[in-house]
């Protein structure tokens, strides 16, 4: 296994699983000292980022993005977790300063979806519960903030501070919604769970759409105030981007800590084989609800930030596409792995935007505005391609390649 330095690093790039399994063992030793060190990874990032000056300001978004993705991919696949995260963090913090408003909007979207992905990953990646209705939690957070703070509902309370109060409230609310939706589906597995959660997501959207008296229906909620931080209004995409980015770091840190704890091991047992887990004394009900609640809370928090960023929300913002996008980025990135989620968000959310005004003109093929017009066509094809070429995702979690075999589907009844 040991070769010359460059050869082994090449191997590492080609075969992440082998390295992750080692790195994973090291990280498994979750003493409090290690925990501090790991929190350090996330905390020092902003400082290092501001100090580090690798801003390719003159490249333009497309090249910047391409470089970013390539560097990210290499770093995330290599063994150097800390170094990779630091460089990544530096770029994520520094780059937006070099961008225009449109590009900053893209960065915001990427970060927001990464946040949602981290939340959904808890449910799907850690606990193995396939949820296609994640948008429900996102929507409940967004509407909670909108309804409390927008002037059309009496102005709410002090708009300057409401954001920071609503944020935890929304997370608690979403967690409760998560538990409420989780209880009835506890017995369902696999594909059935997917369809039922999809149904829940749609029900919530239809309710928001039809309960005009409460939510203003399809007309939506407007003039949602921006949050304040001290006396500064966080109004631009960069400021809110940093709010999401901070959210990502906190959520990622928390999620990984929980995964490495007793709870995480219980989730793993449930994911592997629920029946075995419960026969070994794991309280599957409690742990499954916990996964739903944590995932939902993160989604709800994301919703609040989204609401604040958009200034207006409509029921149509919360359709199934959101759930599918988030699930797709989690799975394409590599399930059960926060690094994979980040990569997935960059590829799935960032790439189509970057390709928006890209055109192809070869011989008689003229596809203008490839990104704008065909991005979803490409997105669909990419989902298929990635599944065929790398069904475990681009950055599979450690020790996880051979998992979730098709064991937990209900036995169908055949033509009786």
């Amino acid at each position, binding site marked *: 296994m040991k070769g010359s330095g460059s050869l082994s690093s090449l191997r590492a790039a080609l075969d992440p699983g082998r390295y992750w399994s080692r790195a994973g063992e090291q990280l498994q030793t979750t003493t409090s000292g290690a925990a501090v060190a790991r929190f350090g990874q996330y905390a020092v990032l902003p400082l290092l980022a501001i100090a580090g000056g690798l801003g390719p300001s003159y490249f333009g978004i497309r090249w910047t993005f391409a470089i970013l993705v390539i560097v990210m991919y290499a770093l995330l696949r290599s063994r150097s977790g800390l170094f990779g995260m630091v460089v990544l963090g530096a770029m994520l913090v520094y780059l937006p300063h070099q961008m225009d408003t449109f590009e900053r909007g893209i960065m915001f979207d990427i970060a927001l979806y990464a946040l949602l992905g981290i939340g959904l990953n808890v449910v799907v990646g850690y606990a193995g519960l396939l949820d296609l209705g994640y948008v429900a939690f996102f929507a409940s957070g967004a509407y909670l903030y909108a309804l409390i703070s927008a002037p059309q509902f009496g102005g709410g309370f002090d708009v300057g501070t409401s954001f920071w109060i609503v944020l935890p409230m929304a997370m608690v609310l979403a967690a409760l919604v998560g538990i409420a939706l989780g209880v009835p589906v506890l017995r369902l597995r696999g594909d059935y769970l997917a369809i039922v959660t999809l149904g829940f997501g749609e029900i919530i959207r239809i309710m928001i759409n039809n309960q005009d008296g409460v939510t203003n229906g399809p007309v939506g909620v407007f003039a949602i105030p921006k949050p304040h931080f001290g006396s500064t209004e966080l109004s631009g995409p960069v400021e809110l981007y940093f709010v999401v980015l901070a959210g990502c770091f906190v959520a990622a840190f928390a999620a990984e800590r929980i995964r490495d704890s007793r709870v995480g091991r219980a989730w793993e047992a449930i994911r592997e084989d629920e029946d075995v887990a419960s026969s070994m004394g794991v309280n599957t009900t409690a742990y499954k609800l916990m996964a739903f609640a944590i995932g939902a809370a993160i989604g709800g928090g994301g919703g609040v930030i989204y609401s604040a960023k958009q200034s207006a929300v409509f029921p149509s913002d919360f359709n199934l596409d959101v759930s599918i996008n988030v699930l797709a980025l989690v799975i394409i990135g590599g399930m059960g792995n926060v690094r994979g989620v980040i990569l997935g968000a960059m590829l799935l959310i960032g790439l189509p935007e970057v390709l928006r005004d890209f055109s192809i003109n070869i011989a008689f093929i003229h596809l203008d505005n490839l990104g704008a017009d065909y991005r979803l066509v490409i997105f669909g094809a990419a989902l298929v391609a990635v599944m065929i070429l790398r069904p475990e995702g681009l950055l599979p979690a450690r020790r996880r390649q051979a998992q979730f075999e098709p064991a937990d589907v209900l036995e169908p*009844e*055949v*033509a*009786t």
Partner: protein
Amino acid sequence: MSGEATSAVAPSASAGAPSAHLRLDGVVSGYGQIKAIKGISLHVETGEVVALIGANGAGKSTTLRTISGLLRPSAGEISFEGKRIDRVAAHDIVRMGISHAPEGRAIFGRLSVLENLRLGAYQRNARAEIEQDLERVLTLFPRLRERVKQDGGTLSGGEQQMLAIARALMARPRLLLLDEPSMGLSPVLVETIFRTVIEINRAGTTILLVEQNAAMALQVARRGYVLESGAVALEASAAELRASDLVRKTYLGEA
């Protein structure tokens, strides 16, 4: 579709062709990384009943699954009536004349007994012959005749075992692979099943029989192999095996 190049070999010569009927040569097979059989060589001659005995997990079922094409060997050769079959798809091997009644019966519980039996003849087309064979197996197992309309899943364990054997016969095999036909049956039924096995063999079908019940198997079989941890530990005539220390201690439960 791939890997079926050697499909559709017409059942030319009838039972009674000379030379080794079935031959395994250094066959290695298993599940993913797990090698459950590690280089098995054995042969079955036309008209014989050959027993394959061994402890739980020795690799008996894996051997049968590899012969019938459910598993693809990672090394070694398998030939049947002189033709290589180790790269042939399972559904084409049936067509070539090998029928496998798998462990645990594996009947289709939601299909009627009659549908189960007709599925046994799935790859055959001659209607009249199929009806004739249906009549034949129902005569062999009269209990099935009373239950042809019933769902397979509603049969008792013994009846399911009869159905599994009858269904395998419906393919008109020249080689029948039986995996633990006595499993879970009462002593009386075991007796019946083994008598039927002898009958089937007399009617011209070669049989490779996997059994836990070594005593029974060695009464029926002419020769036998003892499998241990995926390899052949012993090969001899049934009489010799019955007399050997290894078999007496381990499989016949004698002191």
